[in-house]
């Protein structure tokens, strides 16, 4: 069994960065890390394949950055396909999906795993776009994933509970955060990652024209960036054992209690 996991390398969300006012997109010239959302897909893939399978990472960047990819390889993924091309800068979700779908096609996996959305762009449409481009069935927002007899069965998050959904492989599944505990790379894993194969491709290797990706390929433009109306801070007090009384009186003023 071969599982492809889409992983994104993003600026550290703890340091939210800023917008490049010229290009109107997030500045990504900082050190990139593995999107934490993707670590759940990597962990789930490793658990699903066990000892007799293969986990291949698929990722794209404009500048051959590998830091986040190395982290996922150190967790235990076997290899990676990295599409690295200057023309990818500024790609929207659909352009991103086209590139990832083309790369996944070369890997020919039984299962494709993704996060539900990235922690920087948050569009949340890429998984379904990839599935449609590859003409695959898909189950999004998985809380639990099991494989047996060429089928994947999934507990899919719904507004008020979950659905049990199954479909034959090959298929794409997007995984919600927190459903497995991503392992920390061991020292051995970190050392081993250095010699794992990373196939680096350009978009022309994938037969994609530069007019379909990047700034030019995105069918949308940012017309303005402006500060949002601010919310003012109110009263702040130190708890000296009686703060709960202030909360109570505040709730009473609001007629909540």
């Amino acid at each position, binding site marked *: 069994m071969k599982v492809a996991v889409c992983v994104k390398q993003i600026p550290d969300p703890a340091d939210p960065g800023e917008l490049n006012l010229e290009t109107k997109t997030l500045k990504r010239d900082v050190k990139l890390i593995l999107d934490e959302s993707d670590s759940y897909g990597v962990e789930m893939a490793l658990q699903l394949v066990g000892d007799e399978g293969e986990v291949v990472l698929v990722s794209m960047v404009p500048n051959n950055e590998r830091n986040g990819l190395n982290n996922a390889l150190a967790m235990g993924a076997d290899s990676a396909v990295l599409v690295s091309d200057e023309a990818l800068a500024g790609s929207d979700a659909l352009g991103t999906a086209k590139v990832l779908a083309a790369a996944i096609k070369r890997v020919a996996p039984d299962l494709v795993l993704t996060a539900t959305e990235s*922690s920087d762009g948050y569009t949340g449409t890429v998984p379904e776009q990839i*599935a449609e481009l590859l003409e695959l069935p898909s189950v999004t927002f998985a809380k639990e994933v099991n494989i047996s007899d060429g089928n994947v069965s999934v507990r899919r998050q719904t507004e008020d509970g979950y659905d049990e959904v199954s479909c034959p492989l090959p298929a794409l599944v997007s995984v919600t955060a927190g459903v497995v505990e991503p392992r920390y790379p061991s020292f051995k894993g970190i050392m081993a990652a250095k010699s794992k194969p990373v196939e680096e491709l350009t978009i022309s290797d994938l037969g994609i024209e530069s007019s379909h990706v990047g700034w030019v390929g995105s069918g949308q*433009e940012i017309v303005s960036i402006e500060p949002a109306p601010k919310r003012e801070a109110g009263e702040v007090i130190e708890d000296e054992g009686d703060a709960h009384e202030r909360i109570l009186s505040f709730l009473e003023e609001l007629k909540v209690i």
Partner: protein
Amino acid sequence: MGTIWVHAETKNGEVSTITLELLTKARELGEVVAVHAGSDAEAAALQLGAYGASRVLSTGDLDGGLIGPALASALSGVIGEEAPQAILFGTTYGGRDVAGRLSVKLDAPVITNIVDLVDEDGLTGVEPVFGGTTNVRTRFTGEKVGIFLVRPKSFVAESAGGDSAAVSMIAVPDLGNTGAAKVHNQFVEESDGPKLDEASIVVSGGRGLGEAEKYHLIEDLAKRLGGAAGASRAIVDAGWVPYSYQVGQTGKVVKPDVYIAAGISGATQHMVGMKGSKTIIAINKDSEAPIFSIADLGIVGDVHKVLPALLEALGES
């Protein structure tokens, strides 16, 4: 004005709140047509009409199939003759699936996470970024129909008192492989209080609780106040509570009358989901926590002391 398609999400004939919000906005922008998958279009037609839809295009029952590929295929089959100017989806599990599939079928981009729509040389979406401190306005550049994914609670739903919408069926073409996923069972996870995104009081917990076992403090307080319990992404990622509890950019947007954030520092990801609350109360050990910059009442203190004391006092009242 052109036609605006609004994705109508229903359950047993009941139209979801996000759909009513989208219909209310869409009627400012053009003629509104609801697009729908499921067996309950006729039952929902009265409510859809009341909120502004003149017609409903429905696939009918999907026989256990998932909505994404089915509705996207059916819509791409009629988009030529119907020629909508824009298509609005709610940012929901189903809405995101259909929007993603449809964007590939039409080779059209999607503008996501928007909280407002304005007509400025074409429909333009307003998306808050960096924890809601900055608004970005985006519009489509091509000739293709615009697909927008709108966050819940962006508009206030108001009935226009219109007549029942006329239902017509649209065919789902043979989906081939893409339609192979089937739903076998549906489970409703019972919770006794109000739903997180509809509650007038929300109590959320974060990493400051220290350990999963302490989350009951949040649930107890929510229950005592008749509200719903929520969570920051940090403790959802840590597996303390399910994804459905998450308030934030990923997760649910809430706008309750009172939001109580306990042990939540206020990452931008979280603030986007709750800064529209009418009143915010924050309890956090760190006086520098960003959450205090938007709180109406901030308590610099230990949640393990303040919450039990508050619960005890509430118990007596």
